[in-house]
């Protein structure tokens, strides 16, 4: 059986005035109907990897890969039209920074309905009912009130869940979730993960879960990829996280504050230049 997604030697670089920034430098992995976690520090290329799969790479960037294929479709040679129709319908991405991804002058409810309407013909009343049901599914307490709010009127965690609702309403086969729960409190975080988990199990969705929270990722995903400076430095089954070999991964595990341990100051990572080679 061929995998849902194949990424082989993906590279993304940005020409800038001061030289080329190589954001992604030869990333390879495959994904089936499973949960794959991508962790790594800020700037390591996690979001740009996700965006390349979505076809949302900024136009000034250069992108190349030996293979970049979704369900047998070669993404790099697909037409703009073909990619647009994949996006949202079969492949969706929850973007980091929800407040910037939402339209500030449109109410939350209308935005969800518009998203639904770009993919399906629905009557206004049905659209409203489905948008409210989705807000409820992501554990928004009073969907009716939130439906009529503007993005600046919701809390950080609510904004994130609105984004999730928007992406899930179309029922994608592959979902890339970029830091989808970083602004959520722990109990809601688990509720949202449970929703995603159910979709993987019931609909056979493939999920790429991008996060900087290694502890959370390992408790949720089947496999974890660790990125550093644009490359994959380690790939591990979540259950074997304790066997991590790369000093960056080990450092990440070691510098988390936990309840009941008292380490002042916390250990910090000593980054070695050779990690970025």
């Amino acid at each position, binding site marked *: 059986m061929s995998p849902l997604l194949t990424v082989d030697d993906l590279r993304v670089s940005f020409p800038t005035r001061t030289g080329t920034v190589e954001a992604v430098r030869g990333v390879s992995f495959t994904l089936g109907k499973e949960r794959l976690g991508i962790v790594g520090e800020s700037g390591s290329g996690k979001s740009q990897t996700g965006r390349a799969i979505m076809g949302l790479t900024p136009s000034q960037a250069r992108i190349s890969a030996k293979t970049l294929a979704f369900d047998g479709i070669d993404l790099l040679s697909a037409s703009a039209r073909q990619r647009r129709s994949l996006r949202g319908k079969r492949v969706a991405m929850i973007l980091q*920074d929800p407040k910037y991804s939402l339209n500030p002058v449109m109410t939350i409810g209308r935005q969800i309905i518009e998203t639904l309407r770009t993919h399906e013909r629905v009557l206004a009343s049905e659209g409203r009912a489905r948008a409210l049901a989705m807000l409820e599914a992501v554990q928004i307490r009073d969907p009716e*009130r939130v439906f009529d709010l503007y993005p600046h009127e919701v809390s950080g965690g609510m904004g994130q869940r609105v984004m999730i609702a928007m992406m899930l309403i179309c029922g994608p086969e592959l979902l890339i979730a970029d*830091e989808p729960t970083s*602004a959520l409190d*722990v*109990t809601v975080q688990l509720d949202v993960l449970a929703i995603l988990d159910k979709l993987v199990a019931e609909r056979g969705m493939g999920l790429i879960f991008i996060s*900087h929270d290694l502890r959370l990722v390992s408790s949720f995903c089947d496999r974890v990829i660790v990125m550093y400076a644009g490359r994959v430095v380690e790939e591990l089954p979540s259950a074997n996280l304790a066997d991590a070999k790369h000093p*960056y991964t080990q450092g990440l595990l070691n510098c988390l504050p936990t309840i009941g341990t008292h380490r002042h100051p*916390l250990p*910090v990572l000593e980054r070695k230049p050779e990690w970025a080679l």
Partner: protein
Amino acid sequence: MTREVLSVRDMVVTFDEFVALDGVSLSVTEGQSFGIVGESGSGKSTLLRAVAGLNSFESGTLTVSGRRYSGHLRDKDFYRTVQMVFQDPYGSLHPRQTVDRLLLEPLAIHGFTDVDSRIARALDEVGLGTGFRFRYSHQLSGGQRQRVAIARALILEPKILLLDEPTSALDASIQAEILNLLEQARKDRGLTFVMVSHDLGVISHMCERLAVMRKGKVVEIVSVEALENRTFSEDYTRQLLVASEGFRRD
């Protein structure tokens, strides 16, 4: 003797009909680090913003260093005493401003003249060399931006720092650096912290006491020891503690 420096009594904040803070009370003593945890939308940011005068409160009292404040009016003196670091490092700094401009602004408002040495010292304190002084904030990583936001808050030498999820957008290694930086600043300057986080690990590391919030109310105030020994009374606090151990598939 420990002196109360910040006191909130029966604070109520509403947006149209919606009650975002429903009679919140808490008291923070000098030099203390006080944590706030609670579910998304429970009013944590609203509470800090109401203290800082960024949204007004309808009823209740706010006392800071012995002075009473109401509504959302705060005088210049207030901001010499209280500064805030926001939840979102991407939104809180204007992207098209240089670090220099961002740090200069509060100094100019408060009429400081020794701006060069203060900016250099502030950058040094947060571990950013003077090489960062003329960078634009959109050229900084998330961790670097949060350092600039902290430098900006510390530059007026406040006594109280209100911290809204200062590390939730950062990876664990950078979070550790920022938490160490904040602890050091607190030690060096005898600062008082009020810190919001959804991560109980972070709160138990940084704070001595914490308030647990839910639906606009404080449901419980406990010491960190009580949290560690599980000698608290609210079921919701226990749920938070269990949830902080990670995802479980059942």
